[in-house]
């Protein structure tokens, strides 16, 4: 699905829930363009096309839950933040619909108000940011003296050192210290087998059937970029996920199959009810 959005919509990104072509899923879901769950909620709220103060929080919660559900159905992975928010909204929904229990917890109404405030405040900040960035800016629209004349310094400033320089220098020292002393390996941001096992285990429950191994890789780790680092990350994720599936296969939790040398690897839960074999060649 092509991105139908113009570059100008950065600040008013409509949710990517668009009618798809025939035969395609009805919803196109992409969480990648949202700056977190509140941003997604705000985008959904804008779609209600009413003043944020008059928004139906209940309807919004339902919309969000449907959105995340769809995201999970299609893409199989949703960042934890979004899931936590979904759980909170489900809770909010129940508080709004059910009679208020005799507890000291905030009422559904209070929770809804807090959420509405959160949305208004983020919207206000996003609008303020847009207005700020639209101002004429030094170095782009407005220019300082291009040929400053070498006059004496008026601020009794002997040396040109900024606080940033100072803090950066101290940070460098701290970092060097970490390197010396007991062997301290710098944190290498690679996908570990433990991560992969957790991830595959978590996703297994939602797998319909034989699923290609590379579908298990987190979206950020699929080597979309061309840089050496992106490729390194993607390799680490693939290798870790492969070892993870072997571990889980050994534990009897899943089956692995490959239809030929260098062919794609498929994975499914062991208790998956018998499904028609994938329409590839015979094993």
């Amino acid at each position, binding site marked *: 699905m092509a991105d139908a959005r113009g570059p100008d919509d950065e600040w008013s990104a409509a949710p990517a829930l668009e009618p798809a072509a025939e035969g395609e899923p009805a919803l196109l879901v992409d969480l990648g363009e949202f700056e977190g769950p509140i941003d997604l909620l705000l985008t959904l709220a804008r779609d209600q096309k009413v003043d944020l103060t008059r928004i139906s929080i209940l309807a919004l919660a339902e919309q969000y839950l449907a959105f995340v559900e769809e995201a999970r159905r299609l893409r199989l992975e949703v960042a934890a933040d979004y899931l936590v928010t979904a759980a909170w909204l489900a809770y909010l929904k129940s508080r709004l619909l059910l009679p208020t229990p005799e507890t000291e917890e905030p009422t559904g109404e209070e929770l809804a108000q807090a959420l509405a405030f959160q949305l208004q405040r983020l919207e206000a900040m996003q609008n303020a*940011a847009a207005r700020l960035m639209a101002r004429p800016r030094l170095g782009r629209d407005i220019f300082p003296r291009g040929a400053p004349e070498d*006059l004496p310094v008026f601020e009794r400033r002997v040396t040109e050192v900024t606080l940033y320089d100072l803090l950066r220098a101290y940070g460098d020292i701290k970092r060097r210290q970490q390197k010396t002393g007991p062997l301290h390996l710098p944190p290498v941001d690679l996908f570990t087998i433990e991560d992969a096992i957790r991830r595959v285990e978590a996703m297994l429950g939602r797998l319909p059937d034989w699923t290609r191994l590379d579908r298990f890789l987190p979206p950020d780790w699929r080597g979309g970029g061309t840089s050496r680092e992106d490729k390194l990350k993607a390799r680490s994720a693939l290798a870790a996920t492969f070892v993870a599936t072997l571990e889980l296969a050994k534990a009897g939790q899943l089956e692995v199959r490959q239809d030929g040398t260098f062919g794609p690897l498929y994975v499914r839960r062991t208790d998956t009810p018998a499904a028609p074999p994938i329409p590839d060649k015979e094993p």
Partner: protein
Amino acid sequence: MTAETVIEAPAELEEGFDRRAEQMRLVEAVLFASAEPVEEAALAARLGEGADLRGILDELQAHYSHRGVHLVAAAGRWAFRTAPDLAPLLQRETEVTSRLSRAAVETLSIIAYHQPVTRAEIESIRGVATSKGTLDILMEAGWIKPGRRRETPGRPLTWLTTPAFLDHFGLESLRDLPGVDDLRAAGLLDARPAITTLFSRGDDAALPRAVEDSAED
């Protein structure tokens, strides 16, 4: 006798006028020569005791208000800058204006409008954790700096904008931030915690019991 007094008065006036004109020329030259804004105190020190610096600056500002170069103030510092309305004719893209990420832009405006503000508060407003590079980039640009620590548990560091931030965005003071009065009147700059605890992953985030329970379902 009478004639003498009549003659003397204008002479004195003229001398005062000349001195003031010279002072104005000096201020003009100092500000013109410098690419960076100059502290008002530094200008005052230049002119010496008893000079009407404020009047001179006002007069200069008025003189330049219709010209191609304007005299502007930001955080008590003065500088000549090209007139904003000429921007379409002068515009150029430099690394200064290279695209900031959306996260960086939002973080910058939250710091600007809510300062002094802690990282946990920024995260609570945005609803997501702040990635490491964001504050780093804004600080390297010279737009933000650490402020006083908040006297709350953990004594978290607060963040402020710098005079260079005002200079870059052509603001004389924080009161000139777009829409700041309306936002304050609407209560949208209040420190009121919203659903803070839910969305901030900061160290001080304590999830309400109910949320934690349902999240673990």
